[in-house]
């Protein structure tokens, strides 16, 4: 049994996590600058919850997810996974942590090796960790295929023989093979059509309930995040804009960017849709190689004041459990 203390302790604590990609230019490929794809993120992911991570394309959501899993080296900051800071681990120590955190990818076509059978793909984690016999491995693969709602006989087939939704299920089965605690879902439904999206999301929810999984659900589909997430974090240009429980964020967004994002979600009622007032943002996202000095959103913010131009807003808890990075949020 878990005691109260571990129950409430977050599974993943991200503290000041940054990922900067160097820019090389010139004849001798000197480093001339950095792209700060992810800049000083700080948040917790609680055990058993689904944290939605939303933002527009190129804002660093996927980079954040991959850095948390140490697929990229973090430039600075700590990733405390169940009490261990994995940002500093290397080699074999990191490899031993790998089974506990897995990833589901956006493109179900690209995330499966076309030269391996489905059985080999799902068994790869089992080959790498643990020493199951051949028969046990086969049994486990069949069990996993069953868990994601696929025919056991599919183990001998190749990925190209399946549709997008089925491939995504194969990817999910692979992620589940080692009984992870934490799964980063990197836009797992973005490449699927709408009817399949619902199936995959329902499968993810069902698995979460059965296996007690914790998700970081990266998406730009606000309605889907509203459906699946317990808490939602909003990113803009590599920085966290707002983090709150789902209901608080959708009903009472504090950050002007969140308000603009939410106003872009269409309503399935023509009468409301016709009279709905949208916040239209002007201009483009600035380059992450040369972000604005103060608040990163100040160039497009409808309510920006002078202070926003030169002072970086602090990441603060405006209300209990509701974090925001905006000078003007009360």
């Amino acid at each position, binding site marked *: 049994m878990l005691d109260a203390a571990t129950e409430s302790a977050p599974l993943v604590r991200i503290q000041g996590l940054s990922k900067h990609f160097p820019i090389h230019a010139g004849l001798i490929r000197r480093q001339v600058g950095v792209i700060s794809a992810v800049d000083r993120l700080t948040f917790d992911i609680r055990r058993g919850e689904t944290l939605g991570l939303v933002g527009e394309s190129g804002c660093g959501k996927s980079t954040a997810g*991959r850095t948390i*899993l140490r*697929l990229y080296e973090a430039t600075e900051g700590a990733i405390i996974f169940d009490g261990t800071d994995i940002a500093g681990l290397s080699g074999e120590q*990191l*490899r*031993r942590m*790998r*089974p506990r*955190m*897995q*990833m589901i*990818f*956006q*493109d179900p076509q*690209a*995330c*499966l*090796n*076309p*030269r*391996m*059978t489905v*059985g080999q793909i799902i068994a*790869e*984690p089992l080959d*790498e*960790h643990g020493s199951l016999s051949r028969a046990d491995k*086969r049994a486990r693969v069949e069990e996993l295929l069953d868990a994601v709602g696929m*025919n056991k*006989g*599919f*183990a*001998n*087939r*190749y990925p*190209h*023989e*399946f*549709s997008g939704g*089925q491939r995504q299920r194969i*990817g999910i089965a*692979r992620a589940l093979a*080692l009984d992870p605690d934490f799964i980063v879902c990197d836009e797992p439904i973005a490449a699927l059509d709408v009817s399949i999206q619902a199936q995959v999301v329902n499968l993810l929810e069902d698995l979460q309930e059965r296996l007690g999984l914790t998700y970081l659900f990266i998406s730009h589909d606000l309605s889907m995040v509203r459906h699946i997430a317990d808490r939602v974090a909003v990113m803009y240009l590599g920085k966290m804009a707002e983090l709150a429980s789902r209901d608080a964020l959708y009903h009472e967004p504090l950050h002007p960017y969140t308000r603009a994002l939410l106003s872009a979600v269409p309503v399935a009622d023509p009468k409301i849709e016709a009279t709905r007032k949208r916040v239209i943002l002007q201009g483009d996202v600035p380059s992450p190689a040369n972000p604005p000095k103060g608040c990163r959103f100040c160039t497009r913010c409808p309510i920006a004041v002078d202070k926003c131009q030169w002072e970086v807003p602090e990441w603060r808890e405006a209300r209990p459990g509701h974090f925001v990075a905006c000078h003007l949020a009360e």
Partner: protein
Amino acid sequence: MTDAAANSPVTAMPPKQRSMWGDVWRSYRRHPGAMAGTAVFLLILLAVVFGPYIHTVDPGKLDIRAKNITMSLDHPMGTDNLGRDMLAQVLAGGRTSLAVGITAMLLSMLVGAAVGILAGYFRRIDGALMRVTDLFLALPLLPLLLVITMLFRDTLRAAIGPESGIFVLIVFIIGITSWMNTARIVRGEVLTLKEREFVLAARSIGTRNHRILTRHILPNVLSPIMVSATLGIANAIITESALSFLGLGFPSDFPTWGRLLFDGANFMTLTPSRVIWPGLAISLTVLSVNFMGDGLRDALDPRIRGR
């Protein structure tokens, strides 16, 4: 279109896991070009291996009275200007040419694929390995061959005998001067492959680097390697003949297809069979190997295999 195949009810699944090589073989056998290529290649191989036991004429035997004969019963492919039997020479030369072609190709594939994969996958050694590749590409081939031959021919001959010494030398020369294109092609493929999500997925599982290379990268760069390999055999046979022609290869009394072709070129109007037969042998070998490579490449790709 793929849905139909995947959704069809699976009724008779084999209880055992399908083995990859079994599938490859089944698909290879269904490829008509590959089967024709294999048949021709095997025929050539059998002829040069067992032919000299049936046609027991010494390829070096001079018979000056029977010189420049066209095809006859005694000399099915005629004779050359010194009265040596062409069929015996073609058969004996085939042994050398095929052995040189295949070993040199294997060596060049090994070096090329290894350099390409390592340079593409490990960023740290990419620069160094590619500069070495550029260096080899920039080397003037003929002076290099001259220098290598001068330096090592006699030492190698003394160490492992005249014939095997020159064989090792020629295979080595052809091998180390023909791997660069393969390396560059493979590196390019690996650079795109390693950013693919299945490699990322393998890394998130905790798969070690050498396993990622052998399990995910290598099988996916097999196609370009295969194409280079089939072209490589042809290239090696022709380079060997050029070397022999320059007097840097096998000694002049040691027939190879390339040497027969070059020696016969001067007598083309008198005895055309002297260039037709060795030329035909080279062409057929190259063509059949190309078809085999084609079939093998298709058979190794599961996306094409079923069709």
